[in-house]
């Protein structure tokens, strides 16, 4: 029912058109490539046998073996990451173990180390032959006359460990948000009723955290199954094969690509994540999510007494293990002419770092990753803000359709999306293979769910009355968005921007299939350098990438904080 009094071409309609274009674009990016997998399967060589071949690949002994290995690793890492993330979140949100703002930063610091760099760092540390950790432990052991067993990061437990530390920050973020959303008075009421700390945790806090835990498990499983950097760098040395690596190998190791194997194993991955998703929906069904009261009243933190130091040691130990040690290893290798556990202090030089700037591929890859991160994060946050308004403000059927479609990428491992993009866009009619266009589009799709989570949260923080007051005051939808919503969403959007930037700048999952020699990005180049054994270069590139990522993120967050405190 259109108004007869509305102005002819107000910016309301401009905003509407923009919203429509954005939503249509996202829906296309989701449905077309994923649909193409199906099309590619049924259309391969026009033979009906192919579908059968794909299904055979999906349930083959090889696929089941890969599924078993991957499930074992991801399952172990998920449990470990949940436990560590829960302890960190609880210490930070509910006890006096916090050490100011540093405590909020520490658990998520590992996110700022690009996943490839982190995995390479651990390879340098935990290699049984030339690992720094083994070398240092031997030295320490010889002082007391004890020969410690060698650490082997390339073993199954080693790989599971690297998976775990990769997943912990994601577990932490979900669970800390869960803790924060539980009305402290619920726990206080339990305390007044005579319950002890453990009893409160078991009977009140944990059940209220239910939805957060469910969401975290889904996120960890999806990310774990899609993880490519750690298994390819650490797992392949002792033939610990996982699904994601196998899919990529099927696409890249042979020519022509073994599409049947790639698609079959991809579908297996999708199936697993879909099952996890369904299980999560079933488990959290009927449970109300904890609501944010917005009163911002902190509980008096629990006194840990003598355990406070232990708790703090745990927090710092976590950062040392996940960030400091790998960074030191990378730095040492970057400053040495070659990787050796024996540090020759005299031979340390900045030559390795200089190499990054003198060799075009290295320099370009770093530069590309940064600008891709900036561009994709900016596009995504604007798109996500617009979509959040379209979906949440007008809770229409179309809104929930768009919401549903745009959630699909979250449930599809991003390696699979990369496969789909290769099949759909690299050839006719688009011919986007080896272009930045295909990379940017894939990143937009893959990381949209991450952007949407942040944008939706930012939108929901702006109460509906603030929008209505502006509408009554005569503001059009576009004006409401520009003058009211956007400024108030800035803090939430910048956090999302930083998050997406980190993911894109450190990406390997998408880049391994979509980046080319003409469009090098740092993750893919690092992997190349590592597999060809040029360790000093990979270390130098890792160090520089980590520094650049950290600087961009810190700058963003500081600026956002300043702009929000000025209000």
């Amino acid at each position, binding site marked *: *029912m259109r*108004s007869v009094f509305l102005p002819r071409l*107000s910016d309301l309609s401009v905003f509407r058109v923009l919203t429509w274009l954005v939503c249509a674009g996202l829906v296309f990016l989701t449905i077309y490539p994923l649909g193409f997998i199906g099309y590619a399967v049924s259309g391969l060589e026009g033979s009906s046998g192919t579908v059968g071949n794909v299904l055979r690949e999906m349930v083959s002994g090889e696929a089941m073996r890969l599924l078993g290995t991957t499930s074992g690793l991801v399952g172990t890492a998920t449990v470990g990451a949940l436990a560590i993330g829960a302890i960190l979140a609880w210490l930070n949100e509910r006890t006096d173990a916090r050490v100011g703002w540093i405590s909020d930063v520490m658990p998520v610091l590992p996110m700022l180390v690009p996943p490839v760099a982190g995995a390479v760092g651990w390879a340098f540390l935990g290699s049984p032959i030339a690992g720094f950790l083994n070398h240092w432990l031997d030295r320490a052991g010889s002082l007391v006359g004890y020969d410690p067993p060698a650490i082997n990061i390339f073993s199954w437990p080693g790989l599971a460990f690297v998976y775990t530390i990769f997943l912990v920050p994601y577990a932490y973020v979900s669970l800390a948000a869960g803790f924060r959303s539980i009305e402290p008075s619920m726990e206080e009421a339990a305390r007044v009723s005579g319950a002890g700390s453990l009893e409160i945790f078991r009977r009140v806090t944990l059940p209220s955290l239910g939805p957060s835990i469910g969401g975290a498990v889904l996120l960890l499983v999806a990310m774990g199954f899609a993880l490519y950097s750690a298994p390819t760098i650490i797992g392949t040395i002792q033939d610990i094969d996982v699904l994601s690596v196998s899919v990529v190998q099927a696409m890249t190791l042979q020519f022509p690509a073994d599409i049947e194997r790639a698609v079959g194993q991809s579908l297996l991955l999708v199936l697993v994540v879909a099952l996890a998703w369904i299980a999560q929906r079933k488990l959290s069904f009927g449970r109300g999510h904890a609501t944010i009261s917005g009163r911002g009243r902190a509980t008096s933190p629990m006194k840990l007494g003598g355990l406070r130091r232990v708790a703090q040691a745990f927090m710092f130990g976590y950062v040392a293990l996940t960030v400091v040690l790998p960074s030191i290893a990378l730095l040492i290798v970057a400053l040495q002419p070659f990787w050796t556990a024996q540090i020759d202090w005299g031979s340390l030089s900045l030559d390795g770092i200089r190499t990054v700037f003198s060799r075009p591929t290295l320099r370009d890859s770093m530069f590309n990753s940064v600008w891709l991160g900036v561009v994709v994060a900016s596009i995504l946050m604007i798109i996500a803000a617009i979509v959040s308004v379209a979906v949440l403000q007008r809770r229409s059927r179309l809104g929930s359709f768009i919401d549903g479609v745009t959630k699909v990428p979250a449930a599809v491992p991003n390696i699979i999306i990369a496969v789909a993009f290769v099949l759909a866009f690299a050839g006719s009619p688009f011919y986007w293979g080896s272009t930045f266009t295909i990379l940017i589009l894939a990143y937009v799709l893959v990381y949209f769910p991450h952007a949407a989570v942040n944008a939706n949260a930012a939108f929901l923080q702006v109460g509906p*009355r603030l929008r*209505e*007051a502006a509408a009554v005051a005569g503001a059009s939808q576009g004006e409401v968005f520009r003058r009211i919503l956007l400024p108030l969403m800035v803090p939430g959007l910048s956090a999302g921007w930083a998050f997406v930037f980190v993911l894109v700048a450190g990406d390997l999952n998408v880049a391994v299939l979509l980046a080319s020699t003409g469009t090098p990005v740092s993750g893919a180049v690092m992997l190349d350098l590592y597999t060809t054994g040029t360790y000093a270069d990979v270390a130098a590139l890792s160090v520089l990438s980590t520094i650049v990522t950290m600087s961009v993120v810190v700058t963003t967050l500081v600026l956002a904080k300043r702009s929000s405190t000025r209000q």
Partner: protein
Amino acid sequence: MSQDISTAGIAMRALQKHFHRKDGQLVAAVDGVDLDVKAGTFCVLLGPSGCGKTTMLRCVAGLEHPDGGNIAIDGRTVYSSADRVSVDARGRGLGMVFQDYALWPHLKVRQNVGFPLTTRGGGPRASKDVVRTRVQEALNSVGIGDLGESSISSLSGGQQQRVALARAIASQSDVLLFDEPLSNVDAKVRVQLRGEIKRLQEDLGFTALYVTHDQEEAMELADKLVVLRDGKVEQEGSPEEIYRDPASRYVADFVGSADIIDGQVTSTGPGDAVVATAIGPVAVSQVPAALRSSQEVGVCIRPEDWRIAREAEAAPGINRWSAEVLKRAFLGAYYECVLQIGETQVKARFPGDVDTPVAPGERIDVHIAARRVRILTR
């Protein structure tokens, strides 16, 4: 079916708005309401939560889309289901004060108040000087002329609601809507702001539509009081009419305090009647026209209408009972008592003098004038 409702003020005809409840049931929040608010008058929508008053206000504001009927504001149809007219909120040129203030935290006080003047919804945007002057005038009129440069977060709740009020005034709309604007401020500020809203309305002459569940607030502010029940108008009139002559048990109960005693009409005369009740016959001197003998009715008695009967007063036996004081609370100006008459308990309010004989357990003779008693037929 375009009826002529093109008068100044607000006019609603057969307004309908339904909601789907979670269990799928359709609930009528506004159920065929006809209502006229004359230009320049203060109309209060009163009712308990869930009676549809806020929905009705939001329909007028354009924030809720009705399912049927007409709405006209100052002679202009802003919604008509028959003519397929629906002007959205920005095109209605209204001012509105929200329950939770709805001030924009990223804008200063001055920018909040000036916002309606700088949108395109109200025609051409005002010039900077005009905006500045009007904002200052609006701030002055609500007594916070010096807070223009403050940030919203530095203000108290009362000050914030003044800013919201100034924003509504600055829009220079002829019609202002109020959605329980005082329910979030503390009691003292509430009374103060109430007086100021009334004064502003009288000075500036805007038409006010005001939603509240607070009957005291409603009585003080209203030129016209509209009592709502389940999405329908139960009764409308001046506060005096509503209080003195409630149309139903619902109104009698919701506006003010009342005891309603069931009974049966035993005799009707010209303009009077006697009702047989559990406490005996009650004489009533003002009765509804269509009252029949032996009709089941309710007898409505306000607590403040009870008198302690001295020997000399009143004809013996008519509306006079012996009662036992069960409970007594001293509220300063008066005693609030519960009396037992036969098997029936009633509330009564007596002057708070030292010699009022209302100690619990005491027996007193009470009396009520026949013209004070109301008969409720529904």
